[in-house]
């Protein structure tokens, strides 16, 4: 699976798609592959705040629990309800239908500088 050029990526294997003051956050194909069969996704409620670098939820596979870290700071506007009923979608479409949350970015967001481009992320997981 290819990594969308328009997304930015973290070392903890999240992606973020920023459009104006809005962002969509998910986990990468590499992350879902490492986790294996995903059976449970725990996400914050709309209205709650997420802070860059801090965990905002978790993804569980049959074998393990994995924390998810926020690539940016902001307020949650939507959590993907699809994943409550069909968490396995995260295995099949992690960059698309199985996004995790949408957020309204905090006003001062020069925070995206530390994120990786698709090419950098591809190198990063290739080398890992």
């Amino acid at each position, binding site marked *: 699976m290819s990594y969308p050029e328009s997304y930015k990526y973290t070392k903890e294997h999240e992606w973020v798609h920023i459009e104006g003051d809005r962002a969509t956050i998910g986990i990468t194909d590499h992350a879902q592959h490492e986790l*294996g069969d995903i059976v*449970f996704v725990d996400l914050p409620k709309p209205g709650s705040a997420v802070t860059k670098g801090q965990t905002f939820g978790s993804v569980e596979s049959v074998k393990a629990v994995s924390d998810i870290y926020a690539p940016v700071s902001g307020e949650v506007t939507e959590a993907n309800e699809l994943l409550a009923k069909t968490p396995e979608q995260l295995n099949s479409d992690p960059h698309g239908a199985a996004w995790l949350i949408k957020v309204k970015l905090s006003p001062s967001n020069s925070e995206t500088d530390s994120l990786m481009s698709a090419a950098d992320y591809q190198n990063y997981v290739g080398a890992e």
Partner: protein
Amino acid sequence: MSANTDLKRTPLFETHIASKARMVDFGGWNMPVQYSGIVEEHNSVRQAVGLFDVSHMGEIDVRGPEAGKLVDYVTTNHAAKLKHGQAHYSALLYEHGGFVDDILVHKVADDHFFLCVNSSNQEKDFEHIRQNNRFEAEVEFTSDQYAQLAIQGPKALATLQKLTPVDLAGIKYYWFVDGEVSGAPARIARTGYTGEDGFEIYIQPAEAARIWAEIMKAGEEFGIRPCGLGARNTLRLEAKMALYGHELTASINPFEADLGWIVKMDKGDFVGRAALEKVRANGLTRKLAGFEMRGRGIGRDGYEITIEGQPAGWVTSGGPSPTLNKNIGLCYVPANKTAPGTAIEVTIRNVPVEAEIVATPFYKRRQGASA
């Protein structure tokens, strides 16, 4: 995956790498945790057949005129009652009644017993048995002489039968035969750790890769899959089979672990017996029970359990059940709180989530060919 050369390898290491298995450090062994995926592998065992490399398991041979006496002195089940070619589940205990290990005892002959023990406990078990050997018996550590494969599932018999002249249907549950698989010597036991019918075979390490490949070929028509330790764990959990280090530890006794059936108090003295007498006289304070999550969340190994907000125990093994499509687990709770229907809470990331004690095993296969 980084290649950690300090880890021990089974004779099938290269086979696993070639099969693109995901390898993990399992108690010092470099073992496959999954190949195609845990759920897929799990389902193949419930519905057809799966093949496991369990060569990390340890083997100990006990020989001599008093081999049986030694085995009965260091284990809880009654080895003297075994017939030639019969096996049973048993335990090694410390004097204080806690588990050294849980093991399988096979009676090869009056003067020869073959023990299969947990990989991470094998050296400790060997020392424990030797230290208690005041009989005319020799204890030999023979793990290096065996590779072990588990062929498990409703199509296990049909798969393995293609490769052996031994009449597999004639081997009853928990019996074994010394015969051949693919022309090589094999101890074929109708045992397993999945809750399905199946076989565990003990073979020469040099033959392991060839026999693995032949079993995979023989099972092809049934959709056989190589299975890793991940599926082995979900399968055994559904069947409520204990795992050392989780349900069983040095501070847990067999009655607490709901394994009273492998303790034969009337067979004569054995290591741990005096302590178990006291446990029986005083009654149990805690006991192993099964639970199902009711609230959203998965109770996992080590999570705390509360009842009406008060600390009550801990989860020993927990996770999703692929067969039942529920989140299940085993836990220690006060002995008077083990009735099915009892409401408990599992603390998941600092939040108590509702769960309920349920009857076990979670999964029981429909009556197989023999039992």
